[in-house]
């Protein structure tokens, strides 16, 4: 109890300094949580697009971005005919723009695609999809921001398209996207006879290895990955995740420097007090524990405040109409755990030098000259 009081007393003695340190850690944690959660959410959403009613994804080997992948229609037709395949859905990805929105994701798909089958049709119905070359279906968010609806014509990129339906999906990218018949998308993006990926559903999960082997031997330029494998190995996802942690880590490092500064000041301004504790039998370990305890208290409190700020900020982002559907605010428990651990580690690292300094204080000198 007295030990804990010694830790708290010093923090309360310099309230402003303690609050500034806690705020430093809190804002770092909030920034890290926001960045990591938004990017993790984006990755999960993109993976969700690919794994919609499928187990595997086939795309061009060694491409850095799926938008540059080209899978020939002949390969799609051959794979779809394999007995182990329940269905193979080619998807062509493209980026288009409209008057007020520079980036809209475009999906070139077939009428039987799982996205159309599983979506809630707010306007129109699936049977009309693919009948007209310029017919498109919009995600509800896309329809909202384009202020359009079924039966209207919209300008997308260099073309005019007729809206035949509006669908509601749980995926933000899809909900903000444009769905075109595959052939129309191929013509629009000048990729006739190819798609970006083929999403595959097998009749039996036991056939995954055999399917991958058959793709490898039959189509050396293509690669088949399970959805989880793809999420782990896709270089864009890796870059996004690494960037998120790096930016968040830099923020936390700055917060850690704040803690280090606080702890250095904390030790330097109470050398005499530490000397008194020494004279009364405090060991090096007890002195160090006191310093690390102070630092850990600041870090954990900062992390808790930061997690609260970050969560509120994520919900605020979600409420912005332009971002509606794109922000996944479900904070993963492991992200919270990692953020708290990093904050704690930062705090402890910040207290390392002050603790070592405090352990070297010689009571007799401190009491004589202070």
């Amino acid at each position: 109890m007295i030990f804990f009081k010694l830790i708290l007393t010093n923090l309360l003695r310099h309230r402003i300094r303690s609050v500034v340190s806690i705020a430093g850690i809190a804002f770092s944690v909030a920034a890290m949580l926001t960045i990591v959660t938004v990017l993790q959410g984006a990755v999960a959403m993109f993976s969700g697009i690919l794994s919609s009613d499928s187990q595997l994804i086939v795309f061009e080997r060694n491409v850095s971005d799926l938008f540059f992948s080209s899978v020939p229609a002949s390969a799609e037709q051959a794979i779809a005919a394999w007995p182990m395949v329940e269905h193979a859905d080619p998807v062509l990805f493209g980026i288009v723009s409209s008057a007020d929105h520079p980036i809209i994701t475009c999906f070139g798909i077939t009428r039987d695609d799982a996205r159309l089958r599983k979506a809630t049709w707010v306007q129109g119905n699936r049977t009309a999809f693919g009948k007209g070359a310029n017919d498109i279906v919009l995600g509800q968010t896309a329809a909202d921001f384009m202020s359009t609806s079924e039966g209207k014509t919209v300008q997308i990129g260099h073309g005019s398209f007729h809206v035949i339906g509006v669908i509601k999906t749980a995926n933000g990218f899809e909900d903000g996207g444009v769905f075109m018949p595959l052939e129309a998308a191929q013509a629009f993006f000048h990729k006739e006879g190819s798609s970006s990926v083929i999403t595959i559903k097998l009749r039996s999960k036991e056939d995954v290895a055999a399917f991958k082997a058959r793709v490898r031997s039959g189509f050396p330029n293509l690669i088949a990955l399970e959805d989880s494998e793809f999420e782990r190995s896709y270089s864009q996802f890796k870059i996004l995740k690494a960037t998120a942690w790096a930016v968040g880590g830099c923020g936390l490092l700055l917060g850690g420097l704040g803690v280090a500064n606080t702890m250095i000041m904390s030790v330097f301004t109470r050398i005499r007090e530490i000397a008194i504790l020494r004279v009364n039998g405090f060991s090096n370990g007890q002195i160090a524990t006191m310093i690390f305890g102070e630092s850990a208290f600041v870090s954990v409190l900062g992390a808790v405040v930061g997690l609260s700020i970050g969560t509120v900020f994520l919900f605020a982002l979600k409420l912005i109409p332009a971002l509606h559907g794109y922000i996944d605010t479900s904070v993963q428990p492991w992200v919270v755990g990692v953020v708290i651990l990093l904050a704690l580690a930062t705090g402890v690292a910040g207290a390392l030098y002050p603790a070592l300094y405090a352990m070297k204080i010689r009571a007799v000198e401190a009491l004589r000259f202070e």
Partner: protein
Amino acid sequence: MTQATPLPPQSTKIVLRAEDVWKSYDDGAIEVLKGVDFTGVAGETVALCGPSGCGKSTLLHLLGGLDEPDHGLIAVNGTELNRHSSPLRLLRHEVGFVFQLHNLIPDLTLEENCLIPTVASGLPRKQAMERLRELTDRTGLSHRLGSKIQKLSGGERQRTALCRALMNRPRILLADEPTGSLDEKTSATVFDLLLEIAANEGVTLVMATHDRSLAARCGRLIEMRDGRIHEPV
């Protein structure tokens, strides 16, 4: 006034010993102790007198394990400190310190300050509180347990420091000008208390002081001059 404690016949056990102790500062530029020999037996009260800078405080620090001699031997209860890997055991269980300045932590209460040595030694809370009550009753501080140090008078602060030094029942009490910062009346009161508690607890008291009248009330008076024990009286 309490008189100096006469040595009980059985108390001839040497608890403090310094042999040919040398100590200097600034890489030998300032020689403070120059071959000091000293022995203290169990239960006696010893006053170290002498002018400022003669080495009284330094000798106390060495006897308490707060500093190390350049040369010579220091032994406490038969254990040579030079070979003692850590003075912790000494500071926690065998030696208590009282300084001229009370050296209490101002943001803590009297009770919390006194409990610090028991936190260091790991004494169970219940026993620590019993000991605290016993000491504060004796020193007349039991009504001030929850008071912050800033609210205490100079005499109360020094009595608190005395309680803190005795919390772990040390057998040796080293006091460095314990009444040096107090007025004459308070000084006499605190000194009475020091002698009384030392006598009651059977503690060996070694005290550095400028005050000849207080020193004269100790069982033994040692004169220090120029880093040496000059003339045992």
